[in-house]
């Protein structure tokens, strides 16, 4: 998806809606652009879309929550994508998830209170040979074990201080 710049103001949202006017399925395309810009769909933008598109907010939220891709919460600074594909699952992905949850106190799809991490479950990152695998901000961590998790996370936490 092509990232569009600067759709922060009401005017820019209006222009975006104008661009997709009359196109079937335009709500999804508009939501994609919004999500690319913000990393999620802020509620105030949904309100704006309700007005501009004359689509009830309830319908907009039906669409947003139907698709796993769309988020309603701002993402954390670092996105942890934990693989739950067949290989990673069989090689202990669930234990890795348990370790992440116990350290970060969040469920998949949620963001830590300090805004540092978001956990997301994904299906296969394309390197099953390294299973179990997780990816943080595009960097792959393979052949994971529960013991390795604290050290990996500490690296990101320390970089902040």
């Amino acid at each position, binding site marked *: 998806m092509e990232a569009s710049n600067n759709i922060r103001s009401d005017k820019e949202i209006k222009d975006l809606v104008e661009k997709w006017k009359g196109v079937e399925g335009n709500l999804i395309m508009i939501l994609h652009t919004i999500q690319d810009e913000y990393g999620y769909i802020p*509620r105030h933008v*949904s*309100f704006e879309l309700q007005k501009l598109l004359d689509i*009830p*907010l*309830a*319908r*907009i*939220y*039906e669409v947003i*929550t*139907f698709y796993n891709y769309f988020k*309603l919460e701002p993402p954390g600074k670092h996105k942890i994508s934990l693989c739950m594909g067949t290989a990673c699952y069989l090689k202990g992905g669930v234990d890795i998830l348990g370790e992440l949850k116990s350290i970060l106190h969040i469920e998949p799809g949620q963001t830590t209170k300090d805004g540092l991490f978001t956990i997301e479950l994904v299906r296969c990152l394309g390197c099953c040979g390294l299973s179990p695998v997780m990816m943080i901000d595009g960097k792959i961590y393979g052949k994971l074990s529960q013991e390795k998790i604290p050290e990996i996370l500490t690296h990101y936490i320390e970089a902040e201080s």
Partner: protein
Amino acid sequence: MVKAKINGIDVQVARGTSILTAAKKVNIKIPSLCKHPDLDATAACGICIVKVKGSKKMLRSCCTPLEEGMDIITHDDELQDIRRTVIELILSNHPDECLECGRNNNCELQKLAADFGIRQQPFKEFLRDLPKDDSTKTIVIDPRKCIQCGRCVQVCQDMQDVWALSFLERGIETRISPAGDINLSESPCVRCGQCSAHCPTGAIVEYDETIKTWRALHDTNNHCVVQIAPAVRVAIGEAFGFPDGTNLTKKIYAALRRLGFKAVFDTSFGADVTIMEEASEFIQRFVHKKGKLPLITTCCPSWVDFMEKFYPDMIDHFSSSKSPHEMVGSLAKTYYAERNNLSPANIRMVSIMPCTSKKYEISRNQDMFASGQQDVDIVLTTRELARMIKQAGIDFVNLAPEEPDHLLGDYTGGGVIFGATGGVMEAALRTAHYFVTGKNAPKAEFESVRGLKGVKETTVDMAGQKVKIAIAHGLGNVEFVLRKIQKAISENKELPYHFVEVMACVGGCVGGGGQPYGVTDALRLSRARGLYQDDDAKELHNSHENPFVIKLYKEYLGKPLGEKPHKLLHTHYKPRPMYKK
């Protein structure tokens, strides 16, 4: 027309008729759960499956039209086994809380499970932990009990055009909720309760205030009084086995006295008073050109809430007259209190309404405290009253009829037809005609406003002047009428109407969200017929002829729209946000 066979029986139906409906014509009931006669088929539950002879394929009969030459099988071992499995699967996602549920004994899922003799739970229970939402204090949503039939969502979005409820997420995570998991009270919900009237299970029920009412009745400091709305009298019988539409006014009066109410009033009397005020408003605007036209009726609190949220530009068109039960409330705590040397602070007014929204109306703004107290203390729906009568051990069926307490209890035919769509308009036109001409119109003069057509437009003659009117019921039908008005106003063209009546629920109050379950158009018509028969049977049909209304104005209120009526019987409106979050 198409000709086909169902279980070997010849059937002929109009093209497009579903197999489910066609089967009913030959007295075959295909079990079904999610389909409601008011609503389009969603094919959500899969219980109404049938087979075509010679094919293994199963069809959902709710959404499959009968085709020429089809040979349908509705029942065999395989179909019944699958239906049983589907019920068991639904039950595995449904809490086993029947005994503590608001729908115990009238739940459609419970009935289906009973009919199919479900005696075991072979599937592992999977229940979701979702919070109850009672924020509106009118209807309560318990999403754990939702079977995802989609009726409430269809009702809220299509029938009512409110869009408070939606399906969020998908698959096993699907749940009903306002957009963004906010509370219903923070959403556009107008509390009409049609979702609760259509929900097959206990996932949406009225906010129960029967215990609160018992406590009020048993508190010896209280002087509890009560009133019943027009539509209640022709619906409560359904809970006691009476034929549809039976008018039980006088049995209800008797039952209410046995429950412990010190005085029994009738909202239909309040409707007569409402007509005195509203017809006067109409005359003022239509004849004397003071105030905006069209005048729009405001007896329905869901409609008022809807307009305040969705069409605040129409506020000036609204009648300022309060709804009938609010008028009876403020009069009970002033007029009745004074006549009987009672302190208004000790009077507790309970309104029995066909409506969930009235629970909200009683505190919607300061005008609802016109007597110095909250004018109406508790609102019970028809369903709640039926439960209280049963709890109290009253043999309702054999109860001898009683009269109301006269001060605020006697009504004319004009007052009682308020409960049906078109009724407010018809009663107002009868009295407006009298106000303009000094003569009563023939009773049948304004009957063109009756019936279940979504928008009724007509022109009536009033002393040589043409009055253009519109009646809409079911909020989904309102937009058509309002857009027409807005367009004429913005283009400075001739107004399409002079007088508009809106009721939020299809059929008007007889189809209200607090009425007994299982409403269909046939039932709405039966209930309305009960009201029109009451009108026919009355000696007086015109609100302005009610001797107790005449006495009220003569001895207490003065003239309609005067200072005292203004204080006690009128209210204000203000724009409200659609979403509070």
